[in-house]
Each structure stands twice: as structure tokens, then as C-alpha cells.
């Protein structure tokens, strides 16, 4: 999107939520279209299902595109991911049994955002699933969802060439 060249649409203030939703619907990409049609998070009702096999473990092309093929930026985001996310996964394991789910949800959200940055699409899917289950109060699925998140994390690191 090239905002520098001019706006595409407008909304008058104060913003009316319905009018805004309409404009956003016009301009926002649909979840499954972004980054080549395979990415995205599970849609409503899909939570808990494993991601379709087309969802890649590591969408390198998408990552490079977002980072303008810039090696320095890629180094920053990948090293940040490799350094920080194992800690977040461990922290998530620790708080999973807790009855206060706010921290659990926040950690799942963080893992989701960080994996999205590097194009770790299956881990992103798994984290989004866990976040949704927490939000919906599906507590009996948490153990299974965390296990698949862990598995996707290992798979992603392996795809990135990091020996477990």
C-alpha cells in the first residue's frame, strides 16, 4: 500500500463502528489471501483442528518480502525469535495449569506474533488455536493444544536449521 501517493478511502469523524467496519472490509486483505494464500490463522469454528497440510512450517518467501529482502533485518528478527521464543514456550508451560488465564493468553499471543514475524506459519496457527481456546474457556483442550504448539516449535527450529 502506498500511502505516500494518496489515500484510497475516507471516514468522517467521529468514527462510526459500522461505517469503519465497511471500509475495513473493503480494504483489508482476507485472512487467507495474505502472503500467498496459505497463511493466516484458523478461522472461527476451526479452532482446535490441525492446520491444513498446505500451511508451511516456515514461509521464508513471505518473511523476506515483509523485510524487503534485507539481510540485516532478517538477522535481527530471526535471532530475536530463536533467542526469545524458547523462553516464552517454557513460561507458557509453567503457567498453563494456572487458573488465571490472562498470562497464559498473553504468552500464546506473544508466540503467535513472533512466529508470524518470521513466517513460522504452523507455529502461529498452533499459538492462535491455544489463544482462542483460552478465550473461549475450552480448558480440556489446553494440554493437547500446548503439545502441538511445542511440536510445531521444534519443527520450525529444525526447518531453520537449528539442532534441538
Amino acid at each position: 500500500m502506498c500511502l505516500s501517493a494518496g489515500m484510497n478511502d475516507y471516514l468522517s469523524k467521529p468514527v462510526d463502528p459500522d461505517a469503519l467496519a465497511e471500509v475495513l472490509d473493503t480494504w483489508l486483505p482476507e485472512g487467507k489471501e495474505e502472503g500467498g494464500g496459505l497463511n493466516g490463522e484458523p478461522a472461527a469454528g476451526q479452532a482446535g483442528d490441525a492446520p491444513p497440510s498446505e500451511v508451511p512450517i516456515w514461509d521464508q518467501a513471505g518473511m523476506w518480502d515483509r523485510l524487503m529482502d534485507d539481510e540485516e533485518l532478517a538477522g535481527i528478527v530471526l535471532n530475536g525469535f530463536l533467542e526469545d521464543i524458547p523462553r516464552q514456550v517454557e513460561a507458557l508451560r509453567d503457567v498453563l495449569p494456572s487458573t488465571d488465564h490472562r498470562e497464559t493468553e498473553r504468552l500464546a499471543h506473544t508466540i503467535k506474533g513472533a512466529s508470524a514475524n518470521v513466517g513460522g506459519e504452523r507455529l502461529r496457527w498452533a499459538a492462535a488455536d491455544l489463544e482462542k481456546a483460552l478465550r473461549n474457556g475450552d480448558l480440556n483442550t489446553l494440554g493437547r493444544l500446548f503439545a502441538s504448539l511445542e511440536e510445531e516449535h521444534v519443527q520450525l527450529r529444525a526447518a531453520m536449521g537449528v539442532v534441538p
Partner: protein
Amino acid sequence: MSSSGQRWEWCHEETTESPARSCRTNGRRRCWPASSRTTGAPGRAVLQKRDCHKKGAAPVRILIAEDDFSSRTLLEAVLKRDGHDVLATVSGAQAWEIMQQPDAPGLAILDWMMPELDGLEVVRRVRSRQSASPPYLIMLTTKSGKADIVAGLDAGADDYLTKPFDARELRARVEVGRRMLATQAALAGKVRELGEALEQVRTLHGILPICASCKMVRNDAGYWQQVEVYVAEHTEAEFSHGICPDCMRILYPEFHTPDDGDAGEER
């Protein structure tokens, strides 16, 4: 260092082409952890310095509030490279503390979900403050959060960016913010100028003491001065001197002819 002690570095075969391009023509990129890289691998990738930032655009002081390490460092790297003055924080509480300071950054990028104080609450609090130069607020959300975007804009955010964000889009949105802040500063300057001008006009609208005999006026400093000098000092008006027919008749009777009527004669 990563927990497994491995870091990423970018390597490529020696080529006359630029590193990024040579990787692309190979169809896939060559990259591997530094620890597994053979020593003395030729042609370590030269970091690509890109100057996409608009020439001449003034840098902006930007606050980042983002608890995710990789997103925060990425935001910081892109914005710092564009020459902006970046301050990175890890929580909404830290961001709110900084935004209350008199020299708070003009632009803030706030993550939606943060511990203690979320981005939405920071937006609300910042907007509840009366300020002559309100900051430009961009919130970071996940793309599935349309409801969050609506709530955030309603609470007073100026723009939003969805994660995973695109570096080009980030630059474009920050540029929009920079333009908005520049417009805001220019408008504030004009308002100040107008206020000062209005003050001058009011002086002329006030009571002006004038001598009933010689028509000198008493100026603001208490001195008597000629009315045309006073008016010239306080307005953009200029005087052109002439003699009216009545004065002409008295002062220069030899030049006065009754046919002249009332038309003034300039000298």
C-alpha cells in the same frame, strides 16, 4: 545468543551481482547457522543499506511499546535506520509514564496486548490529556482483530498496523504520521501568529487619547505623537500626503481657484 548457542548469519557465494540478487537467482536462499558454517566462507553478505527514507524528511522522535522481543527489535531497527530517534519500551505502563513527560515523543507505536496496561488503555489515557500538540498514535494488532482496530480508533488512535507487519508499510504509516505532525505544528504556528496579529488589532480598537486642538495622539508608552505616525506603526496602512481644498484656500490663496471645487490637489 539463542538458547542453543546458534546464531544466524547470511552467506552467499562470490558473485559480481549484489548479494540479495544472487540469492534470488539461485531460486532459494543460502543460509545456515554460523556455528555450522565452514570457516573462511567467501563473500560474507554485505548488509544492504537501503535509503528508502524520503530525502529531506525530518526525523521523528518515536516511542515503541511492544513486549514481544523480536517485533520490538525489528521495529527499532527499521525506524533507527531511517534516522528516527527511537525509544523502545516493553510495557504499556512504561509507555504511559514517558507519554506524560513534557518532552514526550510526538509519535508512538503501541502494541495492543501488553502486560499491566494494554495499548488501548494507553491510547485512552493519552487522549484524555489536554495538549497543544497531541501525539500521533499507531497501534499494533493482529490482523484477526478488526474489532480491536475499531475500538482502538474509537479510543483515539490515529492509525494501525497489523502483525506481521511489512517494513515498507511501517515506513509509509510513520511517514503519514510525520506529515500529520508537521501539519499540526504548522497550524499551531499560524494560530500563534494570528493571535499576535489580533492583539495588534485590539490595540487600535481600544481608546486612543487625542488632543482636541493639535490632533496628536498619546501612544502606548504615554508619549504624544502625530496620528499618522501612530497609525503607520500599528497597521499596514501607509500615508500619502496632500492638501485638502479648505486648507489650500487658507494656506495658498494665490493658487486657489473657485473652479477647483472640492477636489484635493496633491503636491
